[in-house]
């Protein structure tokens, strides 16, 4: 137990401070090379550095490798490789606009190391009722899980700080759930993601100094998905991610197809006093932000806080679900 506490403290420090220290240098480098994009929701349309995914992946790899030095677990190795591959997919998408299908298909390949390393158990555990053994179907679930979590986090990266702040909340909730289930190694691996995204939030929050880009959000999503699989907490991870899943569900059920996010009509409009409201355009997708601002115009920060509160709510549900895992009827 002492070894696990030391590992938890050490990797949390490495995760937080590596991103916290590297990101300002990355911002300067990106600005110098004119790798900036316009923030349309900001007064004056400030130019913001992108992609910040480089500091995110450095933080994830550095801290997960420290964790690997402690436990030499194949599961941690699977997380590192999956995250790194997702970063490669994201950086390609950052550099050139790919079709809507590119990311889901490419992310499916990122899940293959988990299968090759055998870092999973082919059982799907549900609270109260127990688990089902699905050896063949579970392979499909692993392949689908990484694109789903990657694109789910990507779909909420719409306003300053939302993706990093929400990932931080969901990861800490997942970590709490894993501690409840006494899966300490993977709980610490989830702490890493929580602290990496928290450190990045410092620069991503309104007004953003850097955007994570696809490389950043896909690392967030793929790492989260890999932790869910190797930690054997797929259902709990889905519960902690419910607001983001809800966003993807609303989007898909209103658009009825997978489409690259740059091609969609804006579901919100910006008022003269820089508040966001829901558009009346029938062709625009329904999203969680559109739902939140449907009744009242809100600032970007206010919308962020509503989504974070939803994240905390679903995080509490995830921890309750973890407790229910031990209950049998």
């Amino acid at each position, binding site marked *: 137990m002492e070894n696990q506490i030391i590992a938890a403290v050490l990797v949390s420090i490495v995760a937080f401070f590596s991103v916290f220290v590297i990101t300002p240098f990355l911002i300067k480098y990106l600005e110098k090379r004119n790798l900036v994009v316009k923030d349309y929701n900001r007064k004056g349309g400030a130019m913001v550095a992108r992609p910040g995914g480089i500091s995110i992946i450095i933080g994830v790899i550095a801290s997960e490798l420290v964790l690997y030095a402690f436990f030499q677990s194949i599961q941690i190795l699977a997380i590192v490789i999956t995250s790194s591959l997702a970063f490669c997919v994201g950086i390609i998408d950052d550099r050139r606009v790919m079709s809507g299908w590119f990311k889901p298909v490419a992310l499916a390949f990122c899940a293959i190391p988990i299968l090759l390393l055998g870092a999973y158990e082919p059982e799907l555990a549900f609270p*109260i009722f127990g688990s089902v053994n699905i050896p063949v179907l579970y392979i499909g679930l692993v392949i689908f899980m990484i694109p789903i979590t990657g694109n789910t986090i990507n779909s909420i990266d719409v306003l300053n700080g939302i993706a990093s702040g929400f990932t931080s909340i969901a990861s800490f909730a997942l970590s709490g759930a894993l501690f409840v289930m006494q899966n300490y190694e993977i709980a610490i691996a989830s702490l890493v993601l929580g602290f990496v995204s928290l450190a990045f939030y410092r620069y991503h929050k309104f007004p953003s100094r850097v955007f994570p880009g696809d490389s950043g959000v896909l690392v967030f999503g793929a790492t989260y998905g890999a932790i869910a699989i190797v930690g054997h907490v797929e259902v709990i991870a889905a*519960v902690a991610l419910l*607001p983001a899943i*809800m966003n993807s569900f609303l989007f898909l059920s209103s658009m009825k197809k997978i489409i690259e996010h740059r091609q969609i009509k804006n579901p919100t409009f910006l008022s003269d006093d820089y508040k966001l409201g829901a558009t009346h355009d029938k062709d625009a997708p329904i999203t969680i932000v559109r739902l*939140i601002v449907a*009744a009242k115009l809100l600032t970007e920060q206010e919308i962020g806080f*509503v989504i974070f509160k*939803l994240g905390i709510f679903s995080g509490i*549900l995830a921890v309750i679900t973890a407790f229910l895992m031990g209950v049998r009827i």
Partner: protein
Amino acid sequence: MMARPVYTFVFVMWLLILAGGGLIVAILGPLSFSESGDLDPILNSGIKVAIALLLVTAWVFILSTIKNWIFKKQLKS
């Protein structure tokens, strides 16, 4: 409270996950469509997968109905 319907939506999603999991583990998992045991196990599993997909469709339908109700309610308020 402005976001209350959204919380309701998230809570309903959670309940559906618990209920769906229960149905799969407690009822669908142990179910066998071959009383005499002469049905191909793959066919038996295929029928179970089809039922699971039906459950997912029902899940999506319920959520779509709630989504439309919430969105209309939000726009009216």
